[in-house]
């Protein structure tokens, strides 16, 4: 109990890196996101959870400036972020993409390293936990789903942005890889960076995330730590799945 109170106090003292308010998006008359509000803090892994079709990917694309939102207030601290500044504050790694399929993994890593003026050490530091050395000589188009996911995570983590948006970061990974990636993401957050992960596997979300944002039918249903959400759901000791079902 004391630990939880201390942790909550620490969290509330952390910088609010990104504050999203009233984000709305309509596709062909259908409202996909409806006034989404949440906050992402520095040094935290924040999970965006919700069922299929909840609007998670659309929300990420709107935040990254790849899709225009109908209405949104996106703030970095006190600064309202325009599209140019958004490119400097956050980076979004989409799910299920196969860019530059004929190119080799090490060239793509090197391209990102040079584009973001990162050191070779940074690439080396990511290579071991993501096991990139095994696939360095392969062409992107020949990679398996899991290998491709590890590379895309590596590219995302290679960027220097304070906030990283990862769409389904564990999709395609086996159990051991999932555990390794979770450790890597937590250490990245411990270094001060904020991560916002879109996850549909609730168990994975519960294991890696410091805070959760529950999205359902394009609306923010709840936001907070698991304990806060449990309290809100009125459950004494329910797991994340029970919390999710109770709140949605």
């Amino acid at each position, binding site marked *: 109990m004391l630990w939880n109170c201390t942790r909550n106090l620490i969290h509330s003292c952390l910088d609010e890196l990104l504050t999203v308010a009233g984000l709305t998006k309509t596709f062909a008359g259908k409202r996909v996101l409806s006034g989404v509000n949440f906050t992402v803090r520095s040094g935290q892994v924040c999970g965006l959870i919700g069922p299929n079709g909840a609007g998670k990917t659309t929300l990420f694309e709107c935040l*990254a*400036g*790849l*899709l*225009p939102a109908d209405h949104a207030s996106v703030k970095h601290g006190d600064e309202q972020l325009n*599209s140019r500044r958004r*490119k*400097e504050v956050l*980076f*979004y790694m*989409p799910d*299920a*993409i*196969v*860019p*530059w*399929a*004929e*190119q*080799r993994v*090490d*060239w793509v890593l090197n*391209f990102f390293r*040079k*584009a*973001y*003026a990162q050191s070779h050490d940074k690439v080396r530091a990511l290579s071991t936990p993501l096991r990139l050395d095994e696939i360095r*000589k392969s*062409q992107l188009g020949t990679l398996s789903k899991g290998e491709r996911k590890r590379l895309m995570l590596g*590219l995302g983590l290679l960027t*220097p942005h304070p906030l990283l948006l990862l769409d389904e970061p564990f999709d395609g990974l086996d159990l051991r890889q999932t555990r390794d990636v979770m450790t890597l993401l937590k250490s990245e957050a411990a270094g001060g960076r904020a991560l916002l992960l879109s996850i549909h596997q609730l168990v994975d979300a519960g294991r890696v995330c410091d805070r959760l944002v529950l999205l359902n039918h394009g609306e923010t249903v709840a936001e907070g730590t698991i304990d806060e959400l449990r309290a809100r759901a009125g459950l004494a000791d329910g797991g994340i799945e029970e919390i999710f079902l109770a709140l949605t």
Partner: protein
Amino acid sequence: MRSPSFLLLLTKEFRELCASRSFWIMLLIVGALVGHSFITAVGLYAEMSGAGGGPAALSQGLTPLDGVLVPTWGAYDLAATLLFPFVAIRLIAVERETGGLKLLLQLPGSLGVKIAAKAVVLVGAWLVAWLPGLLAIVLWRSYGGHAYAAETWNLMLGHLVRGLLSAGLGIAAGALAESAASAAIVTLGITVGSWALDFVAAGRGGWLQQLASYTPTAALRSFEQGLLRLNVLIVMVAISCAGFALATIWLRSGRTVQSRVLQVLVLLVIAAAVVGGGARANASWDLSENRRNSFGPADEAVLKRIDQPLKITVFLSPEDPRLTDFEQNVLRKLRRSLRRVEVDYAATSSTGLFETDRYGEIWYELGGQKATERSTIEEVVLDQIYKLANLDSPARSSDDGFSGYPLAAQPKHATLLFYICWPVFVILFWRATTKWVDGTF
């Protein structure tokens, strides 16, 4: 955050180009097309030069530009129309389809610079495709053939802007359409539309013919005639740049469709203003060795003294060969020599059948005086104009100083070089670059 260096972007696009099968297939086909055109052209030129033992055609009519260079390089018009746009489309469409564009859009630096890198690489690709054409010129020279530098460079400039135009249209289509297949249909639609415009506007006069003079085929034709027209150059470069700019606007997916449409409209207005302004640039240079686009120096000097506008009414139908003669031998030169020439194409049918009694007449009006003439011969027309302007006809020299370049040469080694060596070279280079891209080289 610092933008990635332009060199890094160029390297990426170059690697993507090397990984593109469409580029290598284009190179293979271009070699065969150029080779076939060259071998046929040299053979025909030899026949006209009396290779079969008979008398040669009038040597003045034997110009390497018309006989060899234009037919050989004509293969590039076909390539720019039917092959090169697909190389350009691939460079955009594949990134859209595979998600690479989402990463590219988030890279530091403006999208315009990233599209510029694609444009530079495409121009480089087009220049690489010129190797068979350059080889043809080298072979022609090795046979003892003549190539006048100014008109050869001018021809290559025409094909350079033709390629740039194809790249601009391909990139724009790739950006606008959702898939490569749709982009290909859009590009082919534009090509077929420009052919239709060319066909419909021939001999019609007015704004339609003015517009048709800037279709890719018509624009290239003036370069093929040894004529460098500033307005054609400006219009082609402006349309190409507009294509690249349109892609830059449309690919910014984070902006609303309305905002992008508005920006495209602004771009179109600016492009139309540049094209409209450029079209008024009348400067032109006759770079042909036989000065086929100009009257003789004596006539040019007299025509310069005419300040008033000349109005010409032509009662010849578009399909009448006399109109073609009149256009090529008289009107094209008059438009360059006189400050203002207005031409009214008054024939009402396309074939000239069942026209009025006036059919075949050409009316000239200058300073309130009118005259009617049926001839389309240069000297006759000029004398008529001088009479209307109250000027004396100058003494003309019967020798224009161009004696022609007959050459009865056989296209030696051409078959081996174009049909065997070139494909082998392309395939070996293709394999080498594939190994370079996948790192096994």
